């Protein structure tokens, strides 16, 4: 303050008057900083993918015969897996059917994870204590973060619509689809914020929010497959997307329901937030435990303790999905035998040989690499987070070599991945057996074990990232599965050269149990994984520990 300035009457000792404005703006700026990188990435995918598919549709639409379309609409399995196929002759309608669910899941899950991370995650580490020592109160800080996330979701929606309009689809449908995608992101964000108010741990809150979203996806699938349960659509953002039918019926009511759901969730989050203590939550597990209830005496014990709960969470989702896949085995194959045109289209979209039960499950088993790959990447990312938080410091002050602990942890993670894959195989077999499809347990297990080398490459990429790019373990670890799958689908549909296609790990997987195992392919994947893991372990051993 210069000597010429007269002090304001309410000035504090420092000559500065606290106002809600600047402090609130600072909180908003912090929230923007925390979510912007992910938001840009998600926006790019949500805008780019549908636009690309819409452009690509021009080469396909004349091939879609009217009879095939009608059959598509009536088949419960198609409705269940891909969503209700409506207006497939329209580039927009085809795009919504082909990418709508995937984009909605991506945006919703991202928003839910980002919401729990920037709210409960920051609170858990104690960083919000500093924030709340200022003039801002807890509900205000929460709502500002939530507002930023809702804004980011709406931007994603705007970008999606803009991408489709630029690709030449009908404006009404594009805007409606963009609004539904943005709305799904808002539901995810509000759900994440509510879970973060109820549960005192970020991981638990993120699990709850994503679990509810995925339950919404299953509800959509059941509602599409079983007409009597069609009302379940109204409980799920993905169901509402189907009900709205952009480019076909263009209904607005589901969008209104979606907006109402966002409002209710935000209100619930604000209400719970206003009634709780900072650092706590109503669904908090008790801090005190019965003395001597559990023993922890070894590093493998610690690794098992850390992996067990996540395996249960991921396992529940994977089992539910693949049980449904098994239950649909016969409806799907009957339909495809009757509609060879669609089988061809599906083959172009990355689902070859859908015609037999074994071909059908083999195609869907390749999808298993995505959740299991994400599981292993997230566990290695948890190790990286432990390091930054200083939780490994005490452990590494014991006579424990870094490689020993990391190898112990990775063994637990690998075992968890095998358990997840096995559970998916058994669930598929159970479902298929229930409907009388011809699938033996051995064939199902062979099919799920066949995709584990892709998961191993994910694990290798995550470990290598832990050594050389520890801040990016999760994205780099997921890349071989998610990026590889996308690359394969794009390379197949856009006829990219063989070497580009060969960069995808999925290019080296045979369709097991439809055909024999591609032994050289699997050996190659495992060699890449082993090299990445060995290099990562060596790098991790030599680098400075963070935190």
């Amino acid at each position, binding site marked *: 303050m210069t000597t010429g300035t007269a002090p304001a009457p309410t000035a504090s000792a420092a000559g500065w008057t606290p106002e809600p404005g600047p402090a609130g703006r600072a909180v908003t700026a912090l929230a923007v900083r925390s979510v912007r990188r992910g938001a840009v990435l998600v926006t790019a995918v949500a805008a780019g993918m549908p636009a690309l598919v819409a452009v690509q549709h021009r080469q396909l639409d004349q091939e879609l015969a009217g009879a095939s379309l009608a059959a598509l609409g009536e088949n419960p399995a198609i409705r269940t897996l891909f969503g209700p196929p409506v207006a497939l002759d329209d580039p927009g309608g085809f795009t919504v059917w082909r990418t709508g669910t995937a984009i909605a899941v991506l945006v919703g899950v991202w928003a839910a994870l980002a919401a729990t991370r920037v709210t409960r995650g920051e609170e858990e580490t104690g960083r919000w204590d500093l924030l709340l020592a200022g003039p801002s109160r807890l509900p205000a800080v929460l709502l500002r973060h939530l507002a930023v996330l809702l804004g980011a979701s709406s931007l994603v929606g705007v970008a999606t619509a803009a991408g489709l309009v630029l690709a030449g689809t009908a404006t009404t449908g594009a805007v409606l689809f963009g609004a539904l995608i943005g709305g799904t992101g808002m539901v995810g964000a509000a759900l994440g914020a509510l879970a973060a108010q109820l549960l005192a741990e970020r991981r638990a809150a993120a699990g709850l929010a994503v679990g509810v979203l995925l339950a919404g996806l299953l509800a959509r699938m059941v509602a599409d497959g079983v007409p009597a349960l069609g009302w379940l659509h109204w409980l799920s953002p993905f169901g509402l997307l189907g009900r709205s039918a952009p480019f076909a019926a263009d209904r607005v009511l589901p969008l209104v329901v979606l907006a109402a759901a966002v409002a209710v969730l935000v209100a619930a989050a604000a209400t719970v937030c206003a009634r709780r203590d900072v650092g706590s939550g109503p669904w908090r597990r008790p801090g005190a435990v019965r003395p001597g209830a559990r023993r922890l005496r070894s590093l493998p014990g610690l690794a098992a303790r850390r992996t067990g709960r996540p395996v249960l969470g991921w396992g529940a989702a994977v089992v539910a999905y693949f049980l449904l896949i098994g239950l649909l085995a016969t409806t799907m194959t009957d339909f495809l035998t009757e509609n060879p045109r669609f089988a061809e289209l599906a083959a172009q979209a990355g689902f070859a040989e859908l015609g037999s039960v074994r071909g059908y499950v083999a195609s869907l088993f390749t999808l298993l690499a995505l959740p299991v790959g994400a599981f292993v990447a997230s566990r290695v990312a948890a190790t990286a987070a432990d390091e930054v938080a200083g*939780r490994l410091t005490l452990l590494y*002050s014991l006579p*424990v070599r870094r490689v020993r602990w990391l190898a112990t942890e990775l063994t637990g993670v690998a075992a968890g991945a095998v358990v997840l894959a096995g559970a998916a195989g058994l669930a598929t077999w159970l479902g298929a057996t229930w409907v009388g499809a011809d699938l033996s347990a051995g064939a199902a297990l062979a099919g799920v074990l066949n995709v584990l080398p892709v998961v191993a490459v994910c694990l290798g990429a995550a470990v290598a990232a832990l050594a050389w790019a520890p801040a990016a373990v999760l994205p780099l670890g997921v890349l071989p599965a998610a990026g590889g799958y996308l690359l394969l689908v794009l390379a197949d549909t856009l006829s990219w050269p063989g070497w580009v296609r060969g960069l995808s790990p999925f290019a080296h997987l045979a369709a097991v149990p439809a055909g024999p195992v591609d032994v050289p392919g699997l050996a190659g994947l495992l060699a890449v994984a082993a090299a990445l893991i060995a290099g990562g372990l060596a790098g991790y051993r*030599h680098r400075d*520990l963070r935190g």
Partner: protein
Amino acid sequence: MPTSPTAVPALRAEHLSKRFSRTVAVDDLSLSVPPGEVFGFLGPNGAGKSTTIRMALGLLRPSGGHVEVFGVPAHDVGRAHRHLAYVPADVALWPALTGRECLDLLACVGPGTDLAYRAELLERFALDPDRRARTYSTGNRQKVALVAAFATRAPLLVLDEPTSGLDPLMEREFRRCVAEAAGRGQTVFLSSHQLAEVEAVCARVGILRQGRLVEVAGLPELRRLRRSEISVTLARPAAAGAGLSGVDGVADLRWSSPLELTMTLAGPPAPVLRALADLDVVALDVREPSLEELFLDFYGDTGGDHRSAGEEVWA
């Protein structure tokens, strides 16, 4: 329990340095702590204390030089860590684990623990181990690490600001534990900001400044090198100057009244005592500098009111 040859130093660093991109965190640090000694490691924030300790633990790799624990290179943690137990400055535990689970794990994987003594320590530090780490305060997490470290029979205890979260009662208990450890012949390497604590338990201190070790000495030695403060009261006013200003080692001569004077003295007191013999002295007080004053001396903060800072932690 591993045996350790007494001839080799418990901790030895030679020309140790660490650079983080452009910053030099530790610069050519050489240090040797003999077995059985309680060594204080002092320095302001950012001086490189924790970096030095993290290199000694093999958590960071030195950019130059090397560091050994009982003759074992620090990077060979499988062997070196059989000889030590560590309390980090900022204790982080897995939130879902209970204090007891953390202690059990550290005991089962660590260099050997006296379980009876650990039970006693839990009582003395008033720590409830059957709570999840998530519910522990900073001080309680620190207690978990302290109990685990003091309960080991590791010949070297490395303590990095171990009492920053403890209340005065627990701090007293901590000092007792250090004394007991020293009594058992364990070496203690104590990095601290609490100068009174270092003064109470350490035999020798090393002072670190901007990554360089500026002084390593026993506390009495250190005091001898530095100024003591002398206040004198006279029965009647002395002649101007009283012949004191020219005496060897005397500085800051100040008359607060014609009968009272203070001065600081470096070196042996004989010359000043001879000069005082000619005056009519009724009271003479020689005060040795506290470690805090020594410490401030090292960092050039000689002005004014620092003595009123008491035992403040410098932030």
